[in-house]
């Protein structure tokens, strides 16, 4: 069996279709914008930003491509963009006419949220009503901290850039790149666990939080930037009113930026200020915040708005240098100093002058003045001062030169003395003294009168005694009497003691008198008498009973009426009692009882019954007399 051949007309038709397809495709390709996409870097860490860039060019006669888009895979997010800018390219084919294409350049800033290899895109644009795509780009995302640190540019992994000219993209400057290709060196000391603000923030750091008055405290203020290059449009410096300050940055120079880890991201860190602060007083001194208003990429949402950032305020605890070991004449200078001096000339006329140049060198806040060895006849005028201050190893160091004119009034060999400067060294935490000897100057007697002639002026103190050369005796000072408690007690004790003693004595006498009168009272006598009468009645002793009852009755009568009834006849007794307002019954009974007593006195046969009856009768009489309340005063 022979194979069948395709008919020729079918073959021609197929070829024609292919050709037409090619032509169509060619025409379509010729009408599509020329596009390409790139990514940098090709390796990044989780959370680190990377750039996808696309250019889309068309002929100059065509409208430019527009509406760029990029497809993002899962795990990759858009951080910023698209940033669109014009782009123009020119090409010169061999022997042909130059071709110029224009279009757009688009940049997206992305970041990956997890490690892996990602295919991003394809990016696309709209052109003449149709959407065109370009190539997909790929990137390797590694976990944080695992990206190898390269000093080379991601554009130039083999470090060829220093040798090769790098073709810059027309219409797109390096400064427009939102992220510099050269990563600053990392500084772990600037790391933070979290960012206090988004995109950009300020941070203040001091090298110490405790210092003595006059000791240098170094303040550094950093700007942390996450992305972009925000512009500082308004700056308010940190308030440091309790400090003397000196900038440690050379004007016109920008310190090298660094990078630091803040939370999960790497931030760019720039040193804005480095200031040497010298506390002026003790206490808890405050360093206020620095305030900056920023505007720029990724920071603001619209034109005319700024983001204000403040650095953290700080406090420094400042105290005086220790008292222990403080030298005489210490004025509060803190640092480490040395002195040197020259005196010229070494001879002068009286009334003339010499120049004394003193060099003060050291670390710290150099004193503004020196304690000069003033003495009579030597006049030190205010000095001319020059200084050279610099920063060395984060410390203020320098030299201050004082040039004095010293007038000499008196002739002779004048010893100018020495300049002594005690200071406290905060590094060694001890005091020291810088000194320089000035030596002598020979002063010739001058013909001209001295400038300040003191002899002609009145000395108001010429009569004041001269210096005391020895320490004389000091009068002993005892404690004043009035500081002793016994003094006040004694001056009060005398009069009070006499008064108290007198009072006690009177009181005692009164008590004794009352006691005595109570013992001799009629009521007591009556009670005693009735007691003995009752006892005698029990014993059957009539005589004793009668005696006791008689005594009691007479005592009652005397006690209640005042009548001494013993001197009254029994027959008249009742009448006398009635005269004293005693009722009849009681008066009669009194006389009766007394009569009965008289009767039984001489009757030893009186029965006990009768004695006890008589005793009871007498007791009732006593009660009646007590209730009767006769007129007292009768005799």
């Amino acid at each position: 069996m022979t194979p069948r051949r395709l008919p020729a007309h079918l073959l021609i038709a197929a070829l024609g279709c292919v050709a037409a397809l090619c032509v169509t495709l060619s025409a379509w390709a010729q009408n599509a914008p020329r596009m390409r996409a790139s990514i940098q870097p090709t390796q990044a860490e989780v959370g680190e930003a990377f750039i996808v860039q696309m250019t889309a060019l068309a002929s100059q006669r065509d409208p430019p491509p527009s509406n760029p888009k990029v497809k993002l895979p899962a795990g990759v997010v858009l951080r910023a963009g698209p940033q669109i800018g014009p782009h123009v390219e020119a090409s010169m084919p061999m022997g042909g006419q130059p071709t110029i294409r224009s279009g757009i350049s688009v940049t997206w800033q992305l970041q990956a949220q997890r490690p892996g290899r990602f295919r991003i895109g394809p990016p696309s644009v709209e052109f003449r009503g149709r959407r065109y795509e370009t190539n997909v780009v790929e990137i390797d995302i590694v976990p944080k901290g695992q990206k190898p640190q390269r000093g080379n540019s991601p554009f130039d992994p083999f470090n060829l850039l220093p040798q090769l000219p790098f073709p810059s993209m027309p219409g797109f400057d390096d400064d427009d790149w939102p992220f510099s290709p050269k990563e600053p060196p990392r500084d772990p000391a600037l790391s933070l666990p979290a960012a206090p603000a988004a995109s950009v923030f300020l941070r203040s750091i001091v090298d110490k939080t405790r210092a003595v008055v006059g000791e240098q405290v170094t303040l550094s203020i950093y700007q942390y930037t996450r992305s972009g290059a925000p512009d500082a449009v308004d700056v308010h410096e940190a308030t440091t009113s309790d400090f003397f300050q000196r900038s440690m940055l050379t004007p016109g120079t920008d310190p090298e930026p660094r990078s630091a880890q803040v939370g999960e991201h790497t931030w760019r860190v720039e040193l804005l200020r480095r200031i040497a602060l010298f506390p002026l007083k003790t206490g808890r001194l405050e360093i206020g915040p620095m305030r900056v208003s920023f505007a720029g990429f990724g920071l603001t949402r619209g034109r005319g708005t700024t983001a204000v950032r403040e650095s953290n305020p700080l406090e420094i605890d400042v105290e005086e240098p220790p008292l222990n070991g403080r030298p005489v004449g210490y004025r509060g200078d803190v640092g480490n100093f040395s002195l040197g001096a020259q005196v010229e000339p070494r001879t002068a006329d009286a009334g003339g002058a010499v120049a004394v140049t003193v060099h003060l060198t050291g670390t710290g806040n150099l004193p503004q003045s020196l304690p000069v060895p003033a003495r009579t006849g030597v006049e030190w005028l205010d000095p001319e001062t020059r200084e050279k201050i610099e920063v060395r190893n984060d410390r203020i160091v320098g030299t201050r030169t004082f040039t004095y004119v010293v007038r000499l009034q008196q002739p002779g060999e004048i010893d100018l003395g020495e300049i002594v400067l005690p200071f406290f060294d905060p590094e060694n935490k001890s005091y020291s003294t810088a000194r320089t000897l000035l030596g002598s100057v020979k002063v010739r007697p001058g013909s001209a009168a001295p400038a300040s002639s003191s002899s002609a002026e009145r000395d108001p103190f010429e009569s004041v005694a001269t210096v005391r050369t020895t320490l004389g005796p000091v009068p002993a000072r005892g404690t004043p009497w009035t500081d002793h408690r016994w003094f006040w007690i004694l001056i009060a004790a005398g009069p009070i003691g006499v008064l108290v003693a007198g009072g006690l004595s009177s009181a005692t006498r009164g008590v004794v008198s009352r006691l005595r009168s109570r013992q001799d009272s009629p009521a007591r006598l009556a009670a005693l008498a009735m007691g003995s009468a009752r006892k005698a009645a029990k014993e059957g002793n009539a005589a004793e009973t009668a005696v006791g009852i008689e005594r009691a009755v007479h005592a009652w009568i005397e006690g209640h009426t005042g009548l001494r009834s013993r001197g009254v006849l029994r027959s008249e007794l009742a009448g006398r009692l009635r005269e004293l307002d005693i009722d009849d019954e009681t008066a009669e009974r009194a006389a009766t009882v007394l009569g009965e007593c008289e009767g039984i006195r001489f009757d030893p046969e009186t029965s006990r019954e009768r004695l006890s009856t008589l005793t009871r009768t007498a007791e009732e009489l006593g009660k009646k007399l007590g209730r009767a309340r006769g007129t007292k005063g009768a005799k």
Partner: protein
Amino acid sequence: MKRGVRVWMLGVVALAACASFTRAVRAESDAEMFARGVSALREGAYDKAITLFEGLADRGFAHPDAAYNRGLSYLARVRAHAEQPGDLGRAAAGFEETLAQRPRDRDAEHALEQVRAEVARRSAMRGGSTQMQARPPIAQALVGLAPESVWAAGAAVGSLVLTVGLLLRRKATPAHRLAGLIAVPLGAIALILFAALAGGARHLRHTTSQGVVSVPEARLLDERGLTRNAEPVPEAAKVDVIERRGALVLIRHGTAEGWTLASNVRLLPR
């Protein structure tokens, strides 16, 4: 003796020796500083003399002769026409301190008079007041009429007279009773009066310090630190310091009372 006890006793002896040596070194050091101050003053190096005598005072060395020389040092600076504001006041403070420790120091009294006269003269040249001594309040003036010991002795005598009078009043004889009748009121009045004065003097001594104004003039302020409409206290004037509150002290100069900066007044040691 046991070895441990011997070692312990040796240690005690060594410690006592060190302490006495240290004390001796310290005393010598004060005397040396005094001697250096005297040399500086004799040489005319008044700044150095001031530094040394002030240094002695800062170390707590209180002696009438050191205070006198300190006053002289400030006067030396004035006489050398290198006077700093407040030098006369500081000189007066030195002489007052001398008198406080040695009340019958004639030289210090004279020097103090000269200083105050010079201050008054300068004030008069400026058209200001020449009154250096201000009249104290009546109560303080009464208390200040005599030393505290005089009032205390008067109170003791008054107590004795009162006691004797009370005892005499209790006697039987009319003469004794009459004597007692006179002595009791006299003694009571004397006791109350002198005891009150002695108590007042003691109270003043305990509650007030004294100081000397060591600035050209000390302006009187109110509690808030605002200037009051009152005559400023002149330099070298002696004032009573009643209270201290932060950087301000409450002072009394005569009947005028007000706050001023603590740095304006040089306190006299009690």
